[in-house]
Every structure is written in structure tokens, then in C-alpha cells.
């Protein structure tokens, strides 16, 4: 494996980590009005992700920084091309963070209601838009000879891309519900589980529709050699298992399977793209690849050394943080 491929894989890992981790805190934010009754329960819901959401978001910042360093042209074309969706994602992430941080600071019903709206909108919108962005990425967008994106906002909002957004919303919501089922007070946890079970069928329908659409709209599955390939099938099996496991009250396993659905789906996307990082819909000659969009070998090697040293350290203390906060957030422990 050459160094460009290693870096492509590392960035894929960062996005996988991001979608897995932020996926459940997006889900928790989206479900806030559906699983919690009254202020105490809402606080329980928010506090389940309290120690985590900020560090989860750093996976995105690191992925962005790594793209900038390892594939400057990918970073430049993607960020200037997906301009308005990224702006909306930024606004949403700001609203959400401020909602989380400022909500509990005032004991005032209006203040807290506004914060709740910020959290719900700020979690739902990016969950949707990441699906839209990733779908556009794998399907290809108009990129010219100068590596510049030539489309507009409407290019990015095709029905297929919107369907991709629906998939990410529903899978993240399910993932979040199963996280709450693990970490919230029993009563809230039970409500979250019931919500997950209700949500599972429409989510399955959307996912299946997307699976078929991807088959007809992209070359993603052809490229994996088999039709439709092992990874997408595994992803569907994991998703199927999540419904069964949630019904059988295997909470931990159910959460793991929605997580694996997200991981495998992201793997499918990145595996299908390779060696391209951003295919052009105007012709394969204009594709950005891990080779024509990359930094110099020296930069990639310097960065690899840094990654080899620091990624294990980061994983160790993040794991420690999840271990410290492994118990349920209950009415009693709240704020303690």
C-alpha cells in the first residue's frame, strides 16, 4: 500500500469515527422532544452525551485538517464546491453547541425552550446534510479541468442526494435512540427503545430504497467486484439485526449493530471511491484522485509519523472517558 492510500484510509477512518460517534449524539439531539417529558428528563437526555459530544466533533475537525494537509486539492474543491451545505452545517453545529452549553445556565422556561430548539435543529440539519454531502461525493459532481466545482446548490440537491440525507437522518436517529436506551434513566431508556422499534420500519424502507437507488445511480457496487458486494450486504444485515436485538432487549448489541451499519456504509462509500477522492460527473479525466490531489511525499511521511504517535494516545484517553461515564444518567446522579 503506498503512502497516498494509507492517508486516504486514515481520513476514511476519521470520518468513520466521526459518523459513528457524532451519529449517536446527533440522534440524541434529534430525539430530545420525543423521548423526554419535562425539564428533568430533558436534562437527563442531554447529559447522556454531555461529556462526549464536543470530543466527538473533534473527529470532524481532525478529518478536515487531515484532508487539508494530505489532499489539499480535495479539501479545496470539496469545501469551495459544497459551499452552502457546509455553511448550514457550521451554523447548525454552532446552534447545537450553544444550546448544550447555555441551556442549563438559566432557570427560565423560555430560555430552555429556545435552547431545546437549537439542539434539535442543530442536530437534525447536519445529520441530514452529511448524508446529502456523502451521496454527492460518491455519485460525482461537475468538476472541470482546473479541479474547480462547476455546479450550484441545486446540483447538490438531487432527489438521490436528498434520499441519502434521509438515510443518514434515520440511521443516526436510531443509533441515538439505542444510545439513550443504554445510558439514560430507565424510564427514558424504555421510551427511547420503543421509539427505536417504531422508527426501525420506516428507516428500513428508506435504507432499502437508497440501496436500490445507489445501484442504479452510481458505479459504487460494480467496483467492489461482486454484485452487490460483501460490505453493503453486511451493512444491511447489521441493520436488520439491530431491529431484532432491540426487540429482544439486547441493548448493547443493538447499539453496536447500528454503529456497525454506519461504519460499514461509510466503508462502502470510501472503498467505492478509491482511488478517486472526488469523481467528476464531466468525465473520468477530471476526477480528483489520491494521487493528483495529494500533498508531497515528504508532507505525507511527516504527518504519518505524527499520526502513528498520537492516534493511539487519543484513542486511549477517549476510551477512558467513555469508561468513566459508562453508568446511566439518572434523576439522582444528575448534576452531581
Amino acid at each position, binding site marked *: 500500500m503506498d503512502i497516498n492510500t494509507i492517508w486516504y484510509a486514515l481520513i476514511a477512518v476519521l470520518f468513520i469515527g466521526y459518523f459513528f460517534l457524532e451519529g449517536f449524539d446527533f440522534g440524541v439531539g434529534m430525539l430530545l422532544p420525543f423521548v423526554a417529558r419535562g425539564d428533568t428528563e430533558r*436534562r437527563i437526555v*442531554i*447529559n447522556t452525551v*454531555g*461529556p462526549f459530544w*464536543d*470530543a466527538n*466533533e*473533534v473527529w*470532524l*475537525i*481532525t478529518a*478536515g*485538517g*487531515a484532508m*487539508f*494537509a*494530505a489532499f*489539499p486539492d480535495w*479539501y*479545496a474543491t*470539496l*469545501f*469551495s*464546491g459544497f*459551499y*452552502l451545505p*457546509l*455553511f448550514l452545517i457550521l*451554523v447548525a*453545529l*454552532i446552534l447545537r*453547541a*450553544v444550546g*448544550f*452549553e*447555555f*441551556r*442549563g*445556565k*438559566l432557570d427560565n422556561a423560555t430560555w430552555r425552550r429556545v435552547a431545546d430548539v437549537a439542539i434539535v435543529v442543530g442536530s437534525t440539519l447536519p445529520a441530514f446534510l452529511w448524508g446529502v454531502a456523502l451521496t454527492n461525493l460518491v455519485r460525482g459532481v461537475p468538476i472541470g479541468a482546473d*479541479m474547480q466545482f*462547476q455546479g450550484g446548490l441545486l446540483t447538490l440537491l438531487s432527489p438521490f442526494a436528498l434520499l441519502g440525507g434521509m438515510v443518514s437522518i434515520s440511521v443516526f436517529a436510531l443509533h441515538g435512540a439505542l444510545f439513550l436506551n443504554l445510558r439514560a434513566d430507565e424510564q427514558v431508556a424504555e421510551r427511547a427503545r420503543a421509539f427505536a422499534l417504531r422508527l426501525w420500519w420506516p428507516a428500513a424502507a428508506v435504507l432499502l430504497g437508497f440501496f436500490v437507488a445507489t445501484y442504479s445511480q452510481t458505479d459504487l457496487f460494480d467496483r467492489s467486484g461482486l454484485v452487490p458486494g460483501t460490505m453493503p450486504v453486511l451493512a444491511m444485515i447489521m441493520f436488520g439485526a439491530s431491529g431484532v436485538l432491540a426487540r429482544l432487549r439486547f441493548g448493547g448489541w443493538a447499539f453496536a449493530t447500528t454503529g456497525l451499519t454506519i461504519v460499514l456504509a461509510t466503508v462502502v462509500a470510501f472503498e467505492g471511491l478509491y482511488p478517486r477522492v472526488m469523481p467528476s460527473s464531466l468525465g473520468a479525466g477530471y476526477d480528483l484522485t489520491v494521487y493528483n490531489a495529494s*500533498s*508531497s511525499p*515528504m*508532507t505525507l511521511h*511527516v*504527518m504519518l509519523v*505524527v499520526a502513528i504517535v*498520537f*492516534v493511539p494516545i*487519543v484513542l486511549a*484517553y477517549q476510551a477512558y*472517558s467513555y469508561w*468513566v*461515564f459508562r453508568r446511566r444518567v439518572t434523576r439522582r446522579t*444528575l*448534576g*452531581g
Partner: protein
Amino acid sequence: MDPLLLARWQFGVTTSYHYVFVPLTIGLGLIVAIMQSFHYRTQNPMFDRMARFWGKLFVINFALGVVTGIVQEFQFGMNWSEYSRFVGDIFGIPLAIEALMAFFLESTFLGLWLFGRDKLPKAVHLLSIWLVALGSLVSAIWILMANAWMQQPVGYSVINGRARLSDPVAVFLNERLLVEAPHTVLAALTTGGLFVLGISAWHLIRHHDRELFARSAQIALVIVAVAGLLTATSGHAQAQHTARTQPMKLAAMEALWDSEQPAAFSLWANIDQNNGTSTREIKLPYLLSVLAYNNTTSEVKGIHELQAQDVAAYGPGDYVPPVAVVYWTFRAMVGLGILFILLALTGLALWWRGRLERRWFLRLAMVFVFLPYLANFAGWITTEMGRQPWVVQGLLRTASAVSPNVGGAQVLVTFLGFTLLYGVLAFLDFFLLYRFARPVSDVRHGEQDTGLGDVFAY
């Protein structure tokens, strides 16, 4: 609408705004860590109250620093894609390392510190806040390394119109970083110190929890005195470095149109950029030569001569930054810095004589809460505007760095969007800081408070 102009305004507004929160995060983080260490060592409950009181304000401020920081990282690619393509090979490295080494550390351990008070051993809880403080410091160094490369590109060669890394060690140990990082970090500490000093003064005037706030003010005074003096000396080193490496910036900082030997330091000038002259000047002879080269004889080159040199080196064009802006922001920064040192020395003298709680001094200290923000802002404007028309000194012009495929309307939407959103956030942040900086009733009576614990969870 001109996308370039809008993109520049957007960068200016979002960066200045981001930098309202960052220095306080760096400064106050360290101060809270010190306070909590005092509690760990002495077991004096007053220090626990102290760390929690300031910790609360730290957290409110930290949240906005984080969210406005994501915008910064995305903005390079969104509005400045040509810049990103040109510098990515080098500039991307510190950015990625900053996220990996610093942001994960800060965010994970802030979570542990906020929510782990009752779950972690005391030593680990203390370690958490130290790691948050360390994270913000490490973050400052990496992002300043990225900025240093824009001021003084090193360790690169330009191949096919792109800067390519040729010497990583030169980038990591950029001379410019060695003068810029101490100055910026020390200014952040001064900011944190003045914040603690001013708010403590407010409480002392109202006789709230005298023990806590008098001790806080003393800690803050020591920090402001030491960090303030060192900010000045490191600033002097940075100015001398600028004289050698960015002479045009230095000439603009002094509104020095014509070369002088020896050069005089300007105290006042009415600057006419179009005609390239100043009127009503007040000058102190020899002083600029001293500031720039530590002697009374050296020549300092003027703007006209440097412009002619730049035309010879880079082709026809206007290489003069907006002189009046650079000149006055530099003066604002230096003037405020001197005031901070004077305030701290006055405070130390009063404390020495046991009269720290003089009302006039406390009132004065309250006003000083706001001034470091102006000084920080002015300093950044000086160094960034002073580099214009370059975005990377001598290599890439700001006008060539903007995204070619992003139209004026799109930049306008994001510019207005961020500005409005940031305006609302500024209001909310100020409101919350004001509210939490005010006394809680149980703090007033100096009792073990119960109301403060709540703010550490959501």
C-alpha cells in the same frame, strides 16, 4: 458584490470574533488549574470555591471558542480554495496536528473535568484541568506556526505554482514562531489575569466573599505583572524581527514614508495614504533605530524606497499596506500594554503596603477587564493588515487566494449569516458572563455554596 472584498471581511470578522474567546481560554484555563492545585495542596475550601467560580466563567467562554473555531478551519477551503491549494502541503500540517494533539485533549478532558467531579479521583480531576490548559497552549503554538509561515515562509520550494515542503524542521522551528508564540501566549495570560483582577475588584467593592476575591486579585496581579512585562519584551523582539524580515510592515507601523538614518519614532501623524505623506507629525528622535536595531545609528527604510524595491522584485503593483490602520492599531496595542503593566505595578505596590482594596484602584481594575480585548484585536490587525497585499509574504497575494468558483452572492449570504449569528452569540455570552460573574447569594455570605455545582452539568 466583489467576492474578494466580502471574503476578506468575513475572514476579518470571524477571526477577530474567534479571538475574543481564545486568549481568555488560554489565560483563564491556566489560572483555574493553578487555583484548583492550591485546593489540592491545602485542602482549604476557599480555593475550591475559587476554582469553581472562575471555572464556571471559563466554561461559558470555552464553548464559544470551540464553535467559532470550526468555522475557521472550514473557511480556508470555502472562501480561500486557491490559498488552500497553494499552501496545503505546508500549512495543513500544523492545522491537522493541532486538531490531533490539542483539540482532542482539550475537549475530552474538559468533559472529564465538567462531569467527572464525583466520579474521578481528586488527582485525576486536577490533572484534567491541567490537560485542558495544556491543550489550549499546544493549540496556540500549532496555529501560530501556521501563521508564522504566512509571515515568513521557510522550508519550502515552489514547484508547479505550489509551495512544497522541503524542510519540515525549518517549518517547525520557524524563527518567526519563536518570537510570535511567546508574545501571543503571554498576552493571553495577561488577558486572563486582567479578567480575574477586574471581576474580583467588582466583588471587593461590594464586600462579597472577601477572602476569595482578595486572594483571586492577588493571584491575578502577579500574573498580570509578570506576563505583562514579558509580553512587552517579547513584543520588542518581534518588532526587531519584523524590521529584518518584513520591513514594509515595520515602515507602515511607523508611517515612515521616507528612509531615515537614524530613524525617529512617531507619536502622532495625520496619514495621507494617497499622496504618500504624513502631516502634523510628532517624533522622538533616534527611538525607532533603538526599537528596531538596539542602536542609535541604524537606517530604517521608508515606504517609498521599499515600494520601489518590491516593484523591482515582484513586478508592477501597490505593495503598501493600509498605513493608517497599521499605524494606529500598533499604537493602540503598545499603549494598552504599557497601561496593563502600570496597573499591575500599582496594584503590587498597594498590596505591599496592605492597601490593595483602595476603591479607586478597584474601580480602575474593573475598567481594565475590557481593554485586553482591544489590545489583542489591535495586535492582530497590525500584523495581518501590515502583511497586505500578501497573504503569504512575498509568495501569494490575497487577491489570488480567493475561491474562483464562489460567487459574491454566496459569500454575502455566509458573511451576513455568520455576522448575525455571532452578534447574537456575543450578546448571550456577555449576558451569561455578567450574570455568573455577579454574586450568588450564598457566595455573598462566604458559606459553602451549593448553587455552583449545578452549572457543571447541563
